[in-house]
């Protein structure tokens, strides 16, 4: 195949935002070259239907790139970060691994400064995002139930919710007794056949390669069948932006054969997540020697304001077998009872809870999660312990809003190089006190929730170093070039021709899972770009 090396638009990254953005532009007639550093996911590695799924699925679907160490992964040093970022560098991006929890931001999420005096307001409102949410929910076959009182009225998800299993029912009943909010999980998982997606059969393997192709990862929903105007190039590593005449004119990339090529476009769009995008901006200045602080960085905020979503867990063993080996892995149900801010709790902003299944025999016997004591769990007690835990183990996964802090940042690290000799990154991140107080308080409530549900074991996992698949803030959007990297449409203030569409541009993290807002923002930016071209 002869590759043209020029297109209307060059997109870096074939994850969620790159997929949504590219489809919109290609459908409108634009040519798009998409450069993806990794390969297609190999679903022959999906092991859900095998008894050894817990053992054999991990090497391939390992979420921590530093452990996975595939050819597409660049080094990320996390010794100075309390949270390790999980990601998938390949076609589909983070959606290959995500649990597919699907949450819109709430109206107050986008006005944290006005409402609670912390973080920043977003330069857009919920009402503006709503129609974009509607569209991407259709495109990603979202399953759920309309009418959640934690949100303004909105268009129902296109598919009905997944059935609530016994463990979900028991916790829902407990919340009803407590007078607390809960709602059936909304997930980007097809509850009935939709497009290329099959119906979910509740393997609970969303993060280990869905064997049904029921989870809406964009390698399936957006990239498998794509417009002929889209030239998707895999195993192609972008090494720097090409800047000519003060404008971003393209990118320099290393193709699978190791040759360096320049790919040009009238617009260059970065969709490489908040770590990868900031790395590329820093690399682009670093190599020139003229701008060690990177490009598009008059504000000095490229790589700064890193947010990674502090989180916590409360695990429990319900009294009887409750079907918790199966189900949608993401969330059987969720609670936003304590999502909105109430300063009397000792912190501002809030947290979202998602109820997750326990998993298989190895997962439900982990000492840190479900241990009652060595003699109670192992030795002569082991058969009884395993039978009691399997099908009854559950956990509340709690996620707090992260606040931007310029002292949380990433930088290039020239001591750790990727296979092409490009520097990796080092993260500097400490969760703020407000978020930690929020998590601690919510853990207490989540323990009450499981106790009310009749759990015979309730365990608050220690707060501390953890991991997260969510990264934000390293190229923040705003209206003032002195305090932001891109404008509210993702266009770089300081570098014409460059647009950023991933989580880098988020002013705050919200406390919900980000996929819905990532997709909606990418669609909004695509339509704005199209409208701008038309008017020009």
């Amino acid at each position, binding site marked *: 195949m002869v590759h043209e090396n020029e297109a209307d638009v060059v997109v870096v990254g074939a994850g969620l935002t790159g997929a949504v953005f590219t489809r919109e532009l290609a459908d*409108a007639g634009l040519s798009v070259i998409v450069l993806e550093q990794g390969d297609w996911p190999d679903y022959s590695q999906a092991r*859900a239907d095998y008894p050894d799924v817990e053992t054999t699925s991990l090497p391939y679907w390992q979420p921590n790139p530093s452990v996975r160490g595939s050819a597409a992964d660049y080094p990320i040093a996390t010794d100075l970060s309390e949270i390790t970022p999980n990601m998938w560098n390949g076609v589909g991006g983070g959606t290959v691994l995500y649990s597919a929890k699907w949450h819109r931001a709430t109206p107050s999420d986008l006005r944290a400064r006005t409402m609670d005096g912390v973080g920043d307001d977003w330069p857009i409102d919920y009402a503006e995002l709503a129609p974009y949410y509607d569209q991407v929910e259709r495109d990603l076959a979202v399953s759920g139930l309309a009418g959640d009182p934690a949100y303004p009225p909105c268009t129902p998800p296109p598919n009905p919710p997944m059935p609530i299993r016994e463990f979900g029912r028991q916790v829902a009943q407990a919340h009803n007794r407590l007078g607390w909010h809960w709602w059936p999980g909304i997930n980007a998982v097809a509850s009935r056949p939709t497009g290329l997606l099959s*119906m979910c059969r509740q393997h609970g393997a969303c993060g280990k390669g869905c064997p049904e192709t029921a989870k809406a990862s964009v390698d399936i929903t957006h990239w498998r069948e794509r417009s002929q105007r889209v030239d998707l190039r895999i195993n192609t590593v972008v090494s720097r932006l090409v800047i000519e005449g003060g404008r971003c004119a393209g990118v320099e990339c290393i193709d699978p054969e190791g040759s360096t090529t320049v790919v040009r476009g009238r617009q260059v769009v970065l969709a490489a997540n908040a770590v990868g995008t900031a790395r590329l901006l820093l690399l682009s200045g670093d190599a020139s020697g003229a701008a060690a602080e990177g490009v598009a960085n008059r504000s000095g905020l490229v790589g700064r304001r890193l947010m990674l979503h502090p989180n916590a867990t409360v695990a429990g063993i319900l009294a009887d077998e409750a079907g918790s080996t199966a189900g949608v892995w993401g969330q059987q149900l969720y609670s936003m009872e304590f999502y909105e801010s109430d300063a009397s709790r000792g912190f501002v902003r809030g947290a979202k809870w998602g109820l997750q299944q326990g998993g298989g025999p190895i997962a439900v*016997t982990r000492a840190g999660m479900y241990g009652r004591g060595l003699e109670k769990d192992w030795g002569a007690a082991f058969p009884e312990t395993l039978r009691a835990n399997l099908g009854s183990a559950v956990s509340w996964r709690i996620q707090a809003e992260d606040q931007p802090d310029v002292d949380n940042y990433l930088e290039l690290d020239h001591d750790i190089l990727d296979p092409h000799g490009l520097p990796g990154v080092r993260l500097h991140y400490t969760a703020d006190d407000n978020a930690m107080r929020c998590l601690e308080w919510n853990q207490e409530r989540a323990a009450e929730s499981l106790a009310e549900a009749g759990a015979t074991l309730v365990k608050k996992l220690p707060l501390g170093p953890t991991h997260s698949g969510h990264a934000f803030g390293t190229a923040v959007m705003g209206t003032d070039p002195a305090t932001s990297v891109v404008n509210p449409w993702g266009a770089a203030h300081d570098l014409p021709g460059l647009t950023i569409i991933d989580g880098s541009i988020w002013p705050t993290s919200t406390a919900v899972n980000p996929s819905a807002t990532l997709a909606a923002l990418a669609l909004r930016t695509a339509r704005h770009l199209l409208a701008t071209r*038309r008017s020009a």
Partner: protein
Amino acid sequence: MSVASDQELDDELRYRLYELAELLLPGNETLPSADGAGAVTTLLDETLALRPDLRRQLEGLLGGWDPEQVEASDYLQDLYATRPREFDLVTATLLAAYLRNPSVRTWLNWHGAVGEAQPSEPSAGEALEELLRPVRDRGAIYRPTPPGNHPGLQPSAPTAQESTP
């Protein structure tokens, strides 16, 4: 003296693991012990061949334990109390091997995350609505939020067809 291939634990470390395994999984009248199931011999080798990363971690962990100085039961107690991740490494590896034994899987009725048949047309249904009634009855819990003042940022959401260049 090691007689192991490069994918297997050497004899000394395998014996250390055996000592732990027999304490953790002693078996009973219906279940074999770890050793009886082959979980520290052939099935362990199969597991570590699939997961060489586990072998490397086990070598690091077990290599740091001197059974002459610390009894196996005390070692397990220490791991459980102070290093749960390392304890989980031992139990996860042993269970992975143990569950490769067909009689253990049959006893547990565990065949993997095999999924289940689902209704062809799922729906919220009356039972769910009844369960949700208290939540709905409480009404909205989101905070009314005034719109921001975003001069010059009027929404523009033309359809793709309208905006073809």
